[in-house]
């Protein structure tokens, strides 16, 4: 009887918890490594690259020449679709970039059907680098 009491008080509950833990933790580990098709949205998202990271990697490679062409303290005025601004801001930081900034340098993103040159002409700016078909780095010529 004393042996049973000793076992119950010292080992039974920890043992039960260890067994239940193994039964719970191991399937979770397995699921994390190889998620099944009918998994939860959070788990599915956990196991793949999110769209934002893909875009950030893409824009990081596109915007790489900016750091080569301009001193790190030079700020940029952004002209273009606001949806993409957050990516440019993140990738270019700590360089300041904003649609509200007053700067001699422009990052211009042309929308569908728009031409980079015509937008740049509005700001009296010349092309410094064509970063993509619809994205360019510009500098003002004389007075804006």
């Amino acid at each position, binding site marked *: 009887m004393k042996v049973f009491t000793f076992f119950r008080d010292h080992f039974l*509950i920890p043992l039960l918890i260890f067994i*239940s*833990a193994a039964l719970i933790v191991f399937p979770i580990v397995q699921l994390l*490594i190889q998620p099944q098709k009918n998994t*939860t949205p*959070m788990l599915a998202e956990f196991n*793949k690259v999110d769209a934002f990271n893909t875009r950030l990697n893409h824009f990081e490679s596109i915007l790489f020449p900016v750091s080569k062409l301009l001193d790190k303290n030079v700020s940029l005025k952004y002209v273009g679709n606001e949806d993409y601004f957050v990516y440019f801001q*993140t990738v270019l930081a*700590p360089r300041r970039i*904003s649609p509200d900034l007053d700067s001699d340098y422009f990052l211009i993103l042309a929308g569908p059907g728009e031409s980079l040159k015509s937008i740049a002409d509005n700001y009296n700016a010349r092309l410094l680098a064509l970063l993509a078909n619809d994205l360019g780095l510009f500098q003002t010529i004389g007075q804006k």
Partner: protein
Amino acid sequence: MILLFLSIFISFAIGWLLIRCLLSESSVPRYLCVLMALPVGWALTSIFFFLWLVVSDGKSLWYPAVEIVLFLAVLVYALNKLRKGRKTFSVRTGLRKKEAWVSIGFFIFTIMNFSIVAMKTSLNPWGRWDAWARINLKARFLFGGGDNWTWIFESSHIAHHDYPLLLGSSVARTWAWMGEISHLGPQVISIVWGLLSILLLFFFVLWLRGPVFAMIVGLSYLTFFPLLYWSAGQYSDLPLVVYMISAMALLIASKGDREHGEIVFLAGLFVGAAAWSKNEGILFLACALVWSFFLAFKHAKPSPWKFAASFFSGLSFPLIALLVLKVVFAGKTDLIEGQMSSLGQIIFLITDLERHQFIWREFQFYLEVLWNRWPLLLLSIGYVLHLAGQRFRIANIGPFGILAALSVAYYYVLITTPYDISWHVSTALDRLLLQLWPIFVFSLAMLFNNFYNQDSEARHVHGEEINKVGQS
């Protein structure tokens, strides 16, 4: 890579030396002192980094040199203090055999889960939305902004400009050590915060309530999937969890620290660090102040004033940084600014039943799908099994009071949000639950005082007796 780990080591060393000075005569176990060292170190170094930016206006040349001087100053202070005082811990503060086996088992489970988190983190090196679009973006300016580091408060295109800077500042100081912006810094920091949150919860409960409760509580949190998800997300919710749990555990333990105010000092530091982590932490600070006031008058010996002095001394350093941030640089939080517009609008939003129903539906979704029911089931069964047939009494309702206050406040913010409620709830609820769930399981463990806790209290008394013998 070496510089990254050196930056983490410096934070750890500063935290460890401070804790070693403070707790050498207390009954806090050594394993907890080791685990608390990094949160203390990260809080102090991130605040120091921010205040250094404020003082130098971003013109400092090589910040790590400043931190090495800080480390040496703390080292000299610690050596001096330890030479005068006791050189060893006064009570047996290691693990018992049973505790050691349970801890090793739990540690293996935790490492298994987190090794997968580490593996999956590389899939999204930039972290989740708030990490790259806000926290790490601010860190980039703190690290490399130079004179323009205050751009994070001025730009209308950086969201939540008023948010506390614990994580952003920690990442920036890590980059300052590394000399470059790297995804590795925030990734490692995020995983370590996740690990610390689960290990500190487990070991605090192990200390205060014994191995069985520690295992139940630890597994209930470990199987809560948002923990693993957000450990790879690089958000500041997990640092907040660490500081809230640590502060509450130390406030409970302060009952056994009647002669000295060191544990209360450390609790105050953790409360302040919680407020330095997130705006939700400021709410926790308000709740903790009320609870501390109650504890001071109920338990503090020799006087409530000494308790208050120790608590506010610990709180002061993070609070100064927070006040500098909020008063000098940042404005009102966007959520409060939006809500203050009209009282009639608030009443309209609160009385709109559809909004309540929407939040409830989302909550059910998380309960059923994301939670997978395991943590709740495990907690219920373990809790009932453990307490059945034993004598116990209600011990601490303070953590439950804090949980209730935080839950009501979070619910209010969601109901009266100036943003689209479906967007706000869907993007915030899982993280709010991530903050509340560990507090809930911790509160449950602290609620009842069973045989093991009496034993634990006996260890406190035993410790005091040994102290007296040592002093005589």
